[in-house]
């Protein structure tokens, strides 16, 4: 500021006029720049995929689509993908609800442990479960050998199980958040009027949760059909769109067919996204203003308690076992062959570079994503310009975009000058920023809706400029939303595979890809050890982050409360 002031000293009035202009129009300028960013890094890649799918040697062609629709193989692939998505969505949302209900309404003693178990999978790559299932049920797996079970894990069933376990936490998180903001008095009222717990869940809890359920379903569906680690490792010869896209692009450089498959992958997602937006229009039951109320543990009726406990314990136990065997496998020489304790997988330091790269990419993505998300939500809520709804919809569309497609899109869009980004670290980070933007934006919007605009007006009233108000009032208020976006982006970027696998380049190997390669390769020990190290790193990062926010006095609750 000081430097510019002296620079412009001679034409002070001119500078002042510029300042004035910025002060008055800042929000519009901000909105425009953010929109450009979204257009370049979110819309353009998708658009590029679409164009590519219609592009032949002589311009426009439908040949690729013809190829798709005339081959039973592709149709089978599409069918499997949709079936997988459907089954998974139902199970994940169902089980997620059981967990969320138990951790918000269930007995106090069970709340914490169940919550921890339901959240564990978030800190590991989703295809950890493919690894666990091989360790347990593979042809030389622990269970296969001990109990003589002869169950073929390679195939559709295996993929469904692995994907389900991987995406329960996502459904759980969304639903828990929703149930928490559901006033317990509503359910108590129904209880008081003679309804049994089962009836209450059916007639009160679930209908009120409908928007949350719908959203959780959308998210799980998109993630399931896009994350291909489990399908690639366990699928055997059963085709799915996402791993097929991967083979098309990475194995054969067939960008045309790869794009067609991507378009096929994105279609159902976009359809659901639009339907979801349409269904939720004006149908939001916020039953609690401001802070969520902790519900008193209620005496659950056995008709609800027994099935809920059975479901949560069953899945919780399975998740726990899956993690336990991976940790175990990290110390086994050659699983199933030479079951001896060794440290050599852990001491294999080659994967450390990949983990370090993952941290770097995730950190950059989280930082940039947190900032952009915060600014976007501010623009969306406080801005008064045409196209506000459009910006909102685009920034929230990240929920509905399969990672595979964005990965392919980035590869096509940013491969050649003037926008050449491939081969570097920034393309990895940017891709994560825009894919995971939605969470930060949504947190920001919620936060801003809770805060009266009068607070900002008061600041202007006292003579502060727009920038001062923004820095002094808005940013501190928005900080919790920034943190929410930061943490989500960081965690997801650390473990996500579907998009970045297309974009890694020599020297910028990422842990998620290394583990995937090792797992596909059959190197269980190395894959497990790398996973274990990565889990440790993620936990450590989270602790450090927590401590830092505490020490810097940027404590979420206090800042929010003081505002």
């Amino acid at each position, binding site marked *: 500021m000081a430097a510019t002031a002296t620079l412009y000293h001679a034409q002070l009035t001119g500078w002042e006029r510029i300042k004035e202009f910025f002060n008055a129009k800042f929000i519009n300028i901000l909105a425009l720049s953010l929109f450009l960013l979204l257009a370049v890094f979110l819309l353009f890649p998708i658009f590029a995929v679409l164009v590519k799918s219609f592009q032949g040697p002589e311009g426009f062609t439908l040949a690729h689509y013809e190829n798709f629709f005339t081959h039973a193989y592709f149709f*089978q692939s599409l069918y499997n993908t949709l079936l997988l998505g459907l089954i998974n969505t139902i199970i994940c949302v169902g089980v997620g609800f059981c967990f969320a209900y138990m951790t918000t309404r269930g007995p106090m003693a069970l709340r914490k442990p169940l919550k921890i178990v339901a959240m564990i999978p978030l800190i590991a790559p989703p295809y950890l479960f493919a690894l666990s299932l091989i360790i347990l049920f593979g042809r030389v797996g622990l269970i296969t050998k001990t109990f003589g079970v002869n169950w073929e894990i*390679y195939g559709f069933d295996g993929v469904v199980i692995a994907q389900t376990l991987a995406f329960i936490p996502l459904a759980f998180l969304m639903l828990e958040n929703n149930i928490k903001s559901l006033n317990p008095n509503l359910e108590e009222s129904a209880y008081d009027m003679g309804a049994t717990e089962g009836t209450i869940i059916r007639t009160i809890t679930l209908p009120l949760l409908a928007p949350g359920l719908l959203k959780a379903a959308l998210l799980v569906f998109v993630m399931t059909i896009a994350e291909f680690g489990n399908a690639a490792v366990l699928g055997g010869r059963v*085709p799915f769109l996402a791993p097929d896209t991967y083979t098309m692009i990475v194995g054969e*450089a067939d960008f045309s067919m790869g794009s067609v498959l991507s378009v096929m992958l994105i279609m159902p997602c976009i359809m659901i996204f639009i339907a979801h937006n349409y269904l939720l229009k004006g149908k939001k039951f916020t039953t609690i203003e401001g802070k969520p109320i902790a519900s008193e543990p209620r005496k659950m009726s056995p008709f609800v308690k027994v099935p809920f406990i059975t479901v949560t314990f069953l899945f919780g136990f399975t998740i726990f076992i899956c993690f336990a065997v991976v940790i175990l496998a990290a110390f086994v020489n050659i699983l199933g*062959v030479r079951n001896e304790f060794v440290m050599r997988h852990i001491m294999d330091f080659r994967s450390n570079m990949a983990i370090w790269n993952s941290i770097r990419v995730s950190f950059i993505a989280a930082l940039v994503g947190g900032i952009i998300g915060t600014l976007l939500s501010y623009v969306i809520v406080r801005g008064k310009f045409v196209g506000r709804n459009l910006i909102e919809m685009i920034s929230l569309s990240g929920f509905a975009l399969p990672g595979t497609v964005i990965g392919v899109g980035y590869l096509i869009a940013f491969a050649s000058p003037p926008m050449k980004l491939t*081969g570097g670290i920034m393309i990895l980070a940017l891709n994560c920023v825009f894919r995971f933007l939605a969470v930060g934006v949504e947190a920001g919007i919620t936060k801003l809706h809770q805060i009266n605009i009068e607070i900002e007006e008061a600041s202007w009233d006292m003579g502060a400029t727009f920038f001062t108000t923004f820095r002094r009032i808005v940013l501190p208020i928005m900080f919790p939303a920034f943190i929410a976006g930061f943490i989500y982006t960081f965690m997801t970027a650390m473990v996500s595979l579907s998009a970045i696998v297309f974009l890694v380049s020599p020297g910028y190997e990422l842990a998620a890809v290394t583990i995937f390669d090792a797992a596909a390769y059959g190197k269980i020990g190395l894959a497990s050890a790398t996973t274990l190290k990565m889990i440790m790193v993620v936990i450590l990062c989270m602790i450090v982050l927590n401590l830092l926010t505490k020490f*810097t006095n940027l404590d979420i609750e206090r800042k929010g409360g003081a505002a």
Partner: protein
Amino acid sequence: MKAKLSLAVLVIFSIMVVGGSVYAADEITAYMGTSPDNNIAIVDYIKKKTGIHIKQTFQSFGEIEAKVKAEAPNFNADMCLGVGSPLTFMAKKNKWAGPYKSSDWLGIGKVFVDPEGYWYNIGNFSFVLVGNKDALAKKGYTLPTSWQELLDPKWKGEIVMASPLSSGTANMIRFAFLALYGDDGGWDFLQKLDKNIHHYTRSGNAPTDLVGRGEFMLGITSDENVKNRLDQGYPLVWGVPQEGIGYDGTFAFIFSTTKGKQLSLCQKVMDALGDQELSDIMAGIGYMSPRPAANKLYGAMTPKYIDLDLGKAAEERPKNNDIWKSKFRVTYK
């Protein structure tokens, strides 16, 4: 005060993370397609010999081929080190590779050195048949000595090999059978074999580990990791069936887009690859090395090779991929 201090720590940490590692003075980027272990062995050797660090990431031959094709002419690497013949011949033809005559490769035969200097071959590898000793013994089976034995229904769901779409090894396997049995006979054999194949892996080396761990009984796999896995104690048996095996080179070339300092670094690397020491390393892994060295896998035996035209193999790869897809990607039952 405490807040300011912590904030400073945060900022420093951010700069550290974002800035990343300090750029090493002598560093090149290479696409390397040998197995992850062998990639590292080569990188370590180059580092020791020349002080040059190679940035690389593991991908199989087919994947590198796809990547290079997709990136052309904006390559994200300085050179390829360990890629198959289809890509190498294509690179020479399209001038994606640039010529360089290395004096350190003088006196080595045509199989390993391109007379025009576009590529160098650091070792020939083959595919072999591997079996899980324990699993075979349990069923009372022995390792087949002829490829035809693999068509026996008793192996149904017990054989793994890589997909020729992504793996260079599998491409070599496919082409070897086409050369052995003729086009029609070859496809017929592959189609019959397909009925017994559990699934096609991404990488040509994967079957070695999968069979070694006992997931599957038999595998048709690249020979480059077999020695290493035997040493690690995997219960593997391997053999060269009587009809013989195919082979491919492991090629290195410098991209024609590499200029200036990076080019001279790449040339230094290329020189180092011609050294006896690298031949010793490669032969130690099980490769047929450019310079004579004791082969740790085959020993003194020279396996029977199927007569191959690598140039034709490279040329027909796209066509064969299409036939493959039309034959093996029909329906899923």
